[in-house]
């Protein structure tokens, strides 16, 4: 019987090594499993932040994200076939939490955006009001000053030296 070509043996050996390496390092590939949902959640939270959400508002979202991350870590460690159901339950909970974060972050983005817009408009309006009040105060003070100067002028006593 003819032995298989060397290149075939080499290819199979390389594939086996790659599979072995992958199985050894799969503990650290948690990101692959959480990738899409976590990525969307982070993006949405950052949008809420840039829209002007406060630190305390973001803290609630980050706390939920960390809980989801912790559960995901627990799920990844469950590798035995007997743990399939528990793993699926954990991942389902992670999914629910991440969806919740995305929804809340989206609402927060809208609220924070409106609040920031309102605050900006108010700041400029207050600027105009302050300018008007300042102008009025200046006019009043200037009028008083003129009256005072006129009064002082008429109170002057002319003495001949």
């Amino acid at each position, binding site marked *: 019987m003819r032995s298989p070509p060397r290149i075939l043996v080499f290819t199979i050996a390389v594939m086996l090594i790659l599979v072995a390496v992958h199985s050894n390092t799969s503990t650290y590939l948690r*990101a692959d499993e959480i990738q899409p949902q976590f990525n969307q959640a982070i993006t949405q939270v950052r949008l809420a932040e840039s829209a002007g959400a406060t630190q305390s508002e*973001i803290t609630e979202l980050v706390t939920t994200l960390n809980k989801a991350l912790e559960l995901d870590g627990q799920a990844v460690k469950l590798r035995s076939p007997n743990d399939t159901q528990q793993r699926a339950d954990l991942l389902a909970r992670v999914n629910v939490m991440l969806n919740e974060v995305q929804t809340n972050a989206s609402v927060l983005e809208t609220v924070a955006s409106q609040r920031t817009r309102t605050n900006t408009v108010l700041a*400029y309006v207050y600027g105009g009001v302050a300018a008007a009040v*300042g102008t009025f105060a200046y006019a009043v003070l200037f009028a008083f000053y003129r009256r005072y100067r006129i009064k002082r002028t008429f109170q002057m006593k002319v003495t001949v030296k």
Partner: protein
Amino acid sequence: MVFITLIVVFEMIAYVATTPRPSEQFFQLYVLGSNGRAAGYYPNNDTYISPNETVSWYLGTTNFMGNVQLVDVRVKLGNQTINPPNDTQGLPSPAPLITEFQRFTQDNETWEFPFVWRVTNAGLVNNTMHILTVEINGETFQVVDCSARSGYNFRLIFELWTWDTNTDAFQFGWETSGEHPVAWLQIWFNMTTSTPFQYA
């Protein structure tokens, strides 16, 4: 004229108050000794560590990026010959990964946690010390091929990785203003044992 002057001044104040100022974006990464200070990294201040000797440190990172970040602190075990992370090229160390710690951190948030470790299985063969298993925070990890001549100059390397939303993956370091800074630390130690080489 007065009104125009005042309105320009007050509107400028309103603009400054409502416009967020750009700040430098960076991370801080640190390791503290057993007492929570930058000292006392080794038991009895001796860099020679025996198998099963517990070493207590604190790992910490602070987020100054201005937004929420998913941080990943990777712990690697290296020896004297393996390359450390490359700062200029932003490349991580090729040393074997032992474990990693992940967490979401807010802007200006410091995340500090205990890092208690010990080498649980190591042995000397042909005057070369091989570390086979390491226990970190109560969990045992296999070490793939890490040895040092006479047990000198092992090092634990801590690398800071962050989640990149553009590539949907962790990246070593972080992106800021078109630059790619990295943060990493290493602590050297020597491993001594009189026990012969044993496979776990």
